[in-house]
Every structure is written in structure tokens, then in C-alpha cells.
């Protein structure tokens, strides 16, 4: 798997931490479990022991491991919340903002064009392809024209559901050039599997070339106020879904 965004590494480290801490206890429990099965297999003339498991001398064998597990739980929760707050609750300043419109069954990506601003005549709207620059922080605004969708880029470790009637915002910062899959991660009807899209991460020169070629298209193509796409419904936007909440 590619690790192509600034927070992908953080999430991977969290996964590793969980693997190590629960893996240790999992293996210990399974080893104890199988050892007990073999150690106490039925033998001639040996009867079972009568143990009620209600005195501390007996229960400590499960209680003490339990307190340690609780301590591990606390560590995992702290690590998980740290990553979560970094990815979903804090927003670093944007270098550029892109708009993502999902529908049955396609994606429309609105790029700000050469002037770096959305809602200007040089905006570039493309189906199923998002073009971004390396090492720039992007804010995205997700909206849907019909049902729930989910904007997921596995190589970025990024996922956010898209809810019709809302504009949901978030951010990412690509750290590796290349082309990565965008999947819809929330079932959205018959064509759910048929809305694959790509995110292309360019370095500065490539991006300039792409911008130049598409800038011309934008000149010829109908302006955003044309019949291309209606503005997303914004009933309760931005709502509580603005990361950071302030």
C-alpha cells in the first residue's frame, strides 16, 4: 500500500501500536488456552478440581491481567484520539480548496484553476479525476446530489462520508506523486462499484502543464453558471461538520 498523504503515516503508526499491544495479549491468551486444554486433558484416575473462582487467591489470575489490559486500553484510546483530532478536528491553513460533488454514479471535481479561487470563470470541472500538487494542503468540500456516498482514498488513509443536504469539509496533504484510486465507500445503488475515480498528485512542473492544457478547455467550456451543475444544496451547511468546530 502506498503512503501518500501527510497523515497516512500517523494512521499506520496507530495501527502498528494496536497490533503490538493487542497482539501480545491475544497470543498470551491463546497460548494459555491451548496449554490448559492439553495439560488438563482427561486422564485415568484424575478427577477435576472443585474451584468456585470466588476468592481473590483464585480470581487474581484473571483480575490482574485485566487491570493491565485496562492500562493498554487507555494507551490505545489516547493514541487513537490524538490521530483523530489531527485528521478530523484540526484544519491546517489551505493552500487551495477543491470541491467534490458525488452523484449516482460519478464524481465531479471542481478545481480552482490558475487564479487559485473557486467560483471564478477559470474553474476546472472534470469528471472522475482530481488533480493536486505535491506537498500542498488541500481543503475539500464534499456534497452529494442524491444519496449517501463516501470519499475514500485508501493510499491517503482518507475517508469521509458525503451526506446530501450538507457540505462536509476536510483536508489532506499529498506527499507522494502518482495516481491513486478514489473509491466510493458507501453503497449508493446499482452503480456503486462503477464510479471509480483517480487522484493525480503532480509536482509543480507537471501541474503547471496540466493547468495550461485545461485552462484552455475551461475557456471554451460553458461557465460554471451554465448548465453544467447546480450548486449543491446548502440547507444546514456548514453545520457541525466543519472540523475544529469553531
Amino acid at each position, binding site marked *: 500500500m502506498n503512503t501518500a498523504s501527510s497523515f497516512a503515516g*500517523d494512521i499506520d503508526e*496507530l*495501527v502498528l501500536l*494496536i497490533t503490538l499491544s493487542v497482539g501480545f495479549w491475544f497470543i498470551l*491468551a491463546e497460548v*494459555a*488456552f*491451548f496449554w*490448559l*486444554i492439553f495439560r*488438563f*486433558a482427561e*486422564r485415568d484416575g484424575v*478427577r*477435576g*478440581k*472443585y*474451584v*468456585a473462582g470466588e476468592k481473590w487467591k483464585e*480470581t487474581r489470575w*484473571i483480575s490482574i491481567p*485485566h487491570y493491565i*489490559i485496562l492500562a493498554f*486500553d487507555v494507551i490505545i*484510546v489516547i*493514541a*487513537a484520539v*490524538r*490521530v*483523530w483530532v489531527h*485528521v*478530523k*478536528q484540526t484544519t491546517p491553513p489551505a493552500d487551495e480548496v477543491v470541491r467534490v460533488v458525488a452523484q449516482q454514479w460519478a464524481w465531479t471535481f471542481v478545481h480552482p484553476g490558475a487564479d487559485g479561487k473557486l467560483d471564478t470563470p477559470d474553474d476546472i470541472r472534470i469528471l472522475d479525476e482530481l488533480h493536486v500538487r505535491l506537498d500542498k494542503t488541500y481543503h475539500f468540500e464534499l456534497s452529494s446530489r*442524491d*444519496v*449517501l456516498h463516501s470519499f*475514500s482514498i*485508501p493510499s491517503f*488513509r*482518507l*475517508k469521509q*462520508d*458525503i*451526506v*446530501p*443536504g*450538507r457540505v*462536509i469539509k476536510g483536508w489532506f496533504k499529498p506527499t507522494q506523486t502518482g495516481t491513486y*484510486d478514489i473509491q466510493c*465507500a*458507501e*453503497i*449508493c*445503488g*446499482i452503480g*456503486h*462499484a462503477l464510479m471509480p475515480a483517480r487522484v493525480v498528485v503532480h509536482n509543480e512542473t507537471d501541474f503547471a502543464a496540466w493547468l495550461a492544457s485545461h485552462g484552455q478547455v475551461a475557456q471554451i467550456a460553458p461557465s460554471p453558471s451554465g448548465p453544467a451543475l447546480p450548486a449543491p*444544496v446548502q440547507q444546514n451547511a456548514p453545520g*457541525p461538520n466543519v472540523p475544529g*468546530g469553531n
Partner: protein
Amino acid sequence: MSTAVEHAHPAAAHGTSGEGGHDAHHQEHWFKHYFWSTDHKMIGKQYLFTGMIMALVGGFAVYVFRMQLAFPGMSVPGYGRVSAADYNALVTTHGSVMVFWVAMPILIAALGNYLIPLMIGADDMVFPRLNRLSYQIFLLSIIVLFCSFFVEGGAFGGAWTSYPPLSSSGTYNNTPMGASLWLVAVALEFVAFLLGGINFITTAMNSRAPGMKLWDIPIVVWMIVLASVIFMASVGPLVAGAIMLLFDQLVGTAFFDPNRGGDPILWQHLFWFFGHPEVYVVFLPTMGIVAEIITVFARKKLFGYRTVIYTAFGIGILSFFVWAHHQFVAGIDPRMANLFTVTTVLISIPVGEMLFVYIATLWGGSIRLTVPMLWALSFIAEFLIGGVTGIYLGASGADIFFHDTYFVIAHFHYTFVPIAIIGLFAAMTHWFPKMFGRHLNEFVGKVHFWGTIISFNFIFIPLFFTGAGGDHRRIYDYSHFPEQWQPWLIELRQLATLALVAMLAFQVLFIWNVFYSMYRGKKAEANPYRANTLEWHAASPPPHGNFPVMPTVYRGPYEYSVEGREEDYWPQHLPS
């Protein structure tokens, strides 16, 4: 004995068996006997066999769509080519059938009905006719579900979670009839289990044999009763939600339609407020089954009877405060995720405690690896995998990546398959001699056990890796995604599918074993395992009215290997 007087004539409670009484050999019409009975044992068997037939339906669905995933575009033997619409319908059918029409009827309804009266020393349920009605409504729900497969547009394909607006509008899901019928079927099924639940709780609280105090009730009865309580407390919001969704579909209301002031997220809260406790509704009865089996076959008292009950209460209460971990990235306020991460990870404490109690019970035992014991032990070993992988998903930061991937699928199948499938096999093989008066074939049972367990692991361990490799759920063809169309991922998907086919094939042995042994198996005595609980005091199979003389209880259910006694068991009904 005075107890025989206290427990009224069982025939009076039935109303179907006439004046003959339980010891007279009365001959009922076969239809009345098999389809119109109020006998808790017959209703239990009806639920059991209906659940097993539905497992075949769910199993066929998963066979078809896993073949499509491994070999996209192939003509699946027995089905043909799978379209995208078919795929969604199959996934939805598999999910809803396995949860609502297999796990629930077998673990709660079948075992609750069969075991509760026998294990508490009663002659039947408190409300036998309500019980019959419960099964009939359940059957009706299945008929409605089957109808939904054949209406215009086909079966509903919006996943078993049925998120609106996809599920609420025929324009979006293309299966308007299927979606409504699916919803009606689910609602009817809930009604059936509400009736059953009332019966279980009332019976266990009121009809216990004299002398059976709360701490003398076998764990499995406790667990089914607690599960019924959790079910009843959690299902209300979902029934309300289902009716609102049905109104959105049919009447044109807009509870969940954002364009007209509704909110699709509301459904998710209502659904998961039920949906997560539901996991524990099926988990607890299987924990009960396992407790009964390991104590009998390790010849051990349970290591902390009260600990198990208290942790079950803890699980039950906590399970109402974790639902939003299904919605971390659904568009809820991100700050909420922190709270639900804490509660979710905390639930590992009571669940872990319970499993530790079971493992500790093995210490000092005299363990016999019979077929039911193998199933019970495999439950513990496999469920541990399901438990620890839940931590990845409960940890909000990691869930950003894992949510809606095959990692989730692998995780919950490591919980649900041990609960529903292993639990079914454990219970079936353990109580088969009681139910049918004959033994299952031990050798065939062991082959079936190993075949099923090994192939089960080969299905779902690969899916942890495809999920970590970025495979999302409910995608019917990955060939459109270059990153998902790599050789290692393709091979893992094929491995999982082949293992699934093997696992399904091994079930033929089980079906053969059940039906052959039912008629030709070795005859079973009343108490073949030398067990303590009351059902083993009744004849195998128990007649109408269950016990020749209603039993009195003198001690707890797990007095095995008591020092100073000649025998290593001490049945609950024997006076000391």
C-alpha cells in the same frame, strides 16, 4: 411430592392435548403436531429448522457473490452471470437473512424455547399460545421476504443497514417494491421476537422449579433472558425508524429526505442504537451455551458464576452507549467520536473478563474433547480474534482507514460466525440426544468440525489483508480500480472464495448426520453426559409436560467434581 401438586396438570396449560394428560400416549393429527403445536419443544424445533433452512438461503447468496468477487464476470454455476443489481441484492439478502433470520431465531427463539422450560423445571412456557403466534408471525416474515425476491425490480439491494435516501426512494434504489417488502419483513420479524422475549422473561422469572433461586439458574437461561431484555429495550427506536422509512417510501413523508427538511443521519442513529446491542443479543446466548458445555466436559464448576452474570449486565448496559462507532466518518460531529471511542474500547473489559472466566474454568479440569466440546472451545479461540480486531475499529483514528473495508467484514464475521454458526453447532451437537433421543455420529461430527473450522479461517484471515489493502465493501468488481487489481489481492480474494466453497461443502456432512442420526443413531439415555442441569433429568426426548414428577432444586447447576462425593457430578434435583 408436593411439587407435583403445585405445578398444575400440563395439559391444562396447553389446551391442545385434550384430557389425555402428559403421560397418556395421545395421537395428534400430524398437522397439529408439527405446525399448530403450543409445546415449547416443538416450537423450538420449528425455529431451529426454519433458521437452518434460512442459513442455506444466506449461504447460497454468499456463494454466488463471492464467486463473482473472485472471478468477476464468470457465469456462476447454479446461478448464471451476476449483474451489479444482482450483486447488491445478494449482499443485502445475505446480511439480513444471516442476522435476522438465522442468528436470531436459532440463538434466541429456538434455544430459548427448547431450553428455558426444561432447564428451570417447568412443563411449558407461561404463554404457550403467544409462543405459537410468535413462530407464525416469524414464518409470515419469511414469506414476505421471499415475495420481495420476485417482485418487479427484484430484491432490495441497499445493504442490510438500509441507509436512506438510497433505501427511501425507488428512484435511487430501483427496487421500490423490494425495499418496502424487505422493511415489512424485518418489522414482522421484530414483532415475533418481542412476543417470544416476553415469554422467555416471564417464564424464567415465574415458573422456576421450587428451590431454584436466582443464582441457581443455568447460565444459558440467564443469558437468553438478558438478551431478550436488551433486545426489547433497543428495538423500539428501530421499529419507529422502520415505520418512518416505510412512510417515506410509500406515503411521501420526508423524515430522511434532506431536500425536504429530513435528515438521513437520523436513520443511522436509530438503526445502530438497535444494531449494536443486537450484536450482544446474539453473543450472550452463545456464551451461555459455551458455559453449559465446558462445565460438563471439563467436569468443572464455572470459575466465577456471579462474575459471568455481572459482566453480562455490564456488557448489556455498555452496549447501549457504543452505537456511533459505526458512524465515525458518517458526517456526525467529529468530537462525538472521542466519546464513543472510549465506550467502545471499554467494552473489551467485560467481554474479556467473561472469556477469561471460561478459559480459567479449564484449569484443573478433566477435559473430554467430544464434538460439542470442540465447538465450544473453538468458539473461545475464534471469538478472541473477533474481539481483538474490534479494537482497531473502535479506535477512531484507525477507523478512518478501516471503516467500510473488508477488515470490518473479517472482524464481524469473526464475531458473528462463532456466535451464530459455531454456537448453533455447539448447541445442536450438545442437546441433540435430548431433542431426538439419539446420538449423532461422533466421527462424522469431528470431520465436519475440522473441515468447517479450517475453511472458516481460510475465508476470513485473507479478508483482513484485502481490507488493509484497501478493498471496500459492496464493490462488485474491483477490476475498475488499478490499486485493487494487483495479483496479491486477486489471489487472496480467490483463496477466500475457495475456502467458502469448501466450508459450504462440509455442511453436507452435518445435514446428513442430523437426519441420519435422528432415525438411525445410537439410542441416548436421559443423561448421557452425566450432567447436572434439569433438562438431563427429563427423558430423551422429553414427553409433553417434560418431567414425570416436577423437580425440586437443591443446588447450583455446576457442582462437578465436588470433593467427598463418589460421583463427579451432582444433579440439581437430587436431595442432598
